[in-house]
């Protein structure tokens, strides 16, 4: 009790001393005062009531709240949030007033919902509560010709997979409830719900090979494999000190990506190149993480979310290209685009403060808030393409902009590189040979290092 009273007394005294407007919110731990003004709550204070860690990222100009495995990011002036890497519309914009990000109850509720909490006005005033599990799911084991599958029925959600030796965690955006206890069966030793995460215990040596959703009825499938077949390592939860780069080997699991003429798979090539690039970056003193370090399926939004969670300094998604014309070859690098016409529409709508397409406007506001990252992304893409152009026999296809899902919502400089065409006989030799992959990794590592060096030099000179 004393632990509760003392902080509350301190808050009350502090508020009395500064005369700050406040609103009382009932939490499971008791009433708490948060800054509120004209129906607008201090979102940082509200989010912290859940126990979330809330930080401001100056480089991105955005706030990030992390609670367990859940994360939400939002930017003052915008009406979009990034929930686990996926753009989500907010009911009303976040405004920066006196250095505080303020939002109305609906906006606070949306941000809280992303963390598994809800804010509602009851008979006793504002109440903060953890979301109860809505969907009731069952977990069963199914065997097919390809091996063993864990099937989660009763939800259309695509949970994030967190695999460690001996268990797999399914992290749901909206908490679920178990319709029945999980019974041991074969490779499945048991399981339980821990907050938003469904933890399934597996036999020794068993791990996740891939995962994917299915429809009619909606269900989520996790294909199991042996650790000798796949080596899935979760990305570290905490951010290591120093410069950090996240490399994303494109595709994986059941998503094979493009196919070469001899059955070569894009997902294997991207993993090999990303691994070799990571090794070179690590050797150069740059901490590097892979979004997948095995043949695991991973949703596009999850890849960006992992980089955001780690507050990476750069994010590079590695792909191999394909085209119907076999003569097309070469490397090309992309970064996220903002259409001039979209920007015009957003500016006009903002000026008139009237309807237009709210999603478009919000998206552009988000883009505009991240214009610094956009410029840096362009420099990263240019650095990559320039190094690839130096490779003997490689054709320069240039730096381009396109609306890639995996680059949407990234809160750091981000680029996607197509290292060559699997549909071209010349390129495919380089893409599939160990020496060719090592050569691609060398130039990609050099490009990232050059980008990081230039960035530090710019920071030193105040550019």
């Amino acid at each position, binding site marked *: 009790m004393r632990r509760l009273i003392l902080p509350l007394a301190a808050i009350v005294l502090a508020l009395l001393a500064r005369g700050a407007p406040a609103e009382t919110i009932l939490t499971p731990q008791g009433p708490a005062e948060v800054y509120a003004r004209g129906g607008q709550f201090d979102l940082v204070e509200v989010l912290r009531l859940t126990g979330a860690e809330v930080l401001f990222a100056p480089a991105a100009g955005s706030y990030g709240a992390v609670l367990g495995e859940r994360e939400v990011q939002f930017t003052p002036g915008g009406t979009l949030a990034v929930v686990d890497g996926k753009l989500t519309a907010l009911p009303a914009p976040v405004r920066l007033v006196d250095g505080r990000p303020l939002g109305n109850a609906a906006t606070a509720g949306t941000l809280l919902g992303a963390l598994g909490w809800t804010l509602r006005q009851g008979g006793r005033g504002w109440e903060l509560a953890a979301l109860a599990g809505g969907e009731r799911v069952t977990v069963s084991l199914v065997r097919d010709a390809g091996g063993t599958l864990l099937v989660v029925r009763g939800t259309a959600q695509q949970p994030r997979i967190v695999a460690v030796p001996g268990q797999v965690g399914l992290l749901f955006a909206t908490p679920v409830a178990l319709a029945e206890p999980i019974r041991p069966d074969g490779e499945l030793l048991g399981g339980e719900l821990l907050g938003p995460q469904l933890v399934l215990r597996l036999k020794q040596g068993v791990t996740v090979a891939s995962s994917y959703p299915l429809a009619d009825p909606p269900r989520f499938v996790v294909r199991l494999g042996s650790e000798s077949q796949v080596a899935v390592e979760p990305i570290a939860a905490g951010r290591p000190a120093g410069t950090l780069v996240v490399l994303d080997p494109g595709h994986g699991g059941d998503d094979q*990506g*493009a*196919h070469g003429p001899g059955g070569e798979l*894009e997902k294997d090539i991207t993993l090999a190149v990303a691994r070799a690039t990571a090794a070179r970056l690590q050797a150069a003193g740059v901490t590097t993480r892979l979004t997948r370090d095995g043949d695991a399926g991973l949703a*596009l939004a999850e890849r960006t979310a992992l980089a955001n969670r780690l507050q990476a300094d750069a994010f590079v998604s590695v*792909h*191999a*290209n*394909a*085209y*119907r*014309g076999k*003569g*097309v070859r070469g490397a090309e690098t*992309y970064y996220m*685009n903002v*259409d001039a*016409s*979209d920007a015009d*529409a957003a500016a006009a709508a903002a000026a008139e403060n009237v309807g*237009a*397409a709210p*999603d*478009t406007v919000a*998206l552009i506001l988000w883009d505009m808030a991240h214009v610094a990252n956009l410029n840096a992304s362009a420099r990263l893409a240019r650095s990559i393409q320039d190094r690839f152009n130096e490779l003997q026999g490689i054709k320069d*296809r240039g730096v*381009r*902009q*396109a*609306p*890639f*899902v*995996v680059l*949407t919502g990234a809160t750091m400089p981000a680029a*996607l590189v*197509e290292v060559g*065409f*699997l*549909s071209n006989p010349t390129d495919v030799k380089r893409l599939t040979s160990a020496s060719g992959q090592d050569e691609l990794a060398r130039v990609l590592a050099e490009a990232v290092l050059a980008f990081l060096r230039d960035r530090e030099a710019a920071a030193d000179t105040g550019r």
Partner: protein
Amino acid sequence: MSRHVRVAAAVLATLVAACSRAPRPDGGTAPAATPEPAVISAVTLFFPGEDGLLERETREVADLAAPGPARVRAIVAELIAGSQQGRPAALPWAATLHAAFVDRAGNAFVDLSAPPEGAIEGTADEAAVVYAVVESVVANCPGVERVQLLFDGSEVATLGHLDLSRPLAPRPELVAP
């Protein structure tokens, strides 16, 4: 339908109209309703080119629909009909056009049959499919600035790489100069 077939059909229609003048009770012949001559319009379509960029292909179309959903449908139908100059198909599956509509914000929505798995591989192929439709519709449909692709009546997040959850504006850098 090729241009030659269309021209032949127009000539045939004129002959049939000329031969079917009904005799009047007074023994005279009713004045024939003069058939409107077909109005020929030039449209520019975009097909995958040899260097991974889209290439322009201009053709003449008879009685092109007025700007609006019908024009969008007509343009996509021409695109589905394929290149007349030997270029690869813009939509590399037996695509059918379910519907097309236009909103007041200048967005066109084109609902196609979904491509089978494996029909589109790689970013370059995917961009060719998506932007062949975007560029062709915007180039020929006044008032349309962006295009969103729907498949089998539903919005899709992506075909693998590109964000298709919102209308897309043309990207001239993906078109051969």
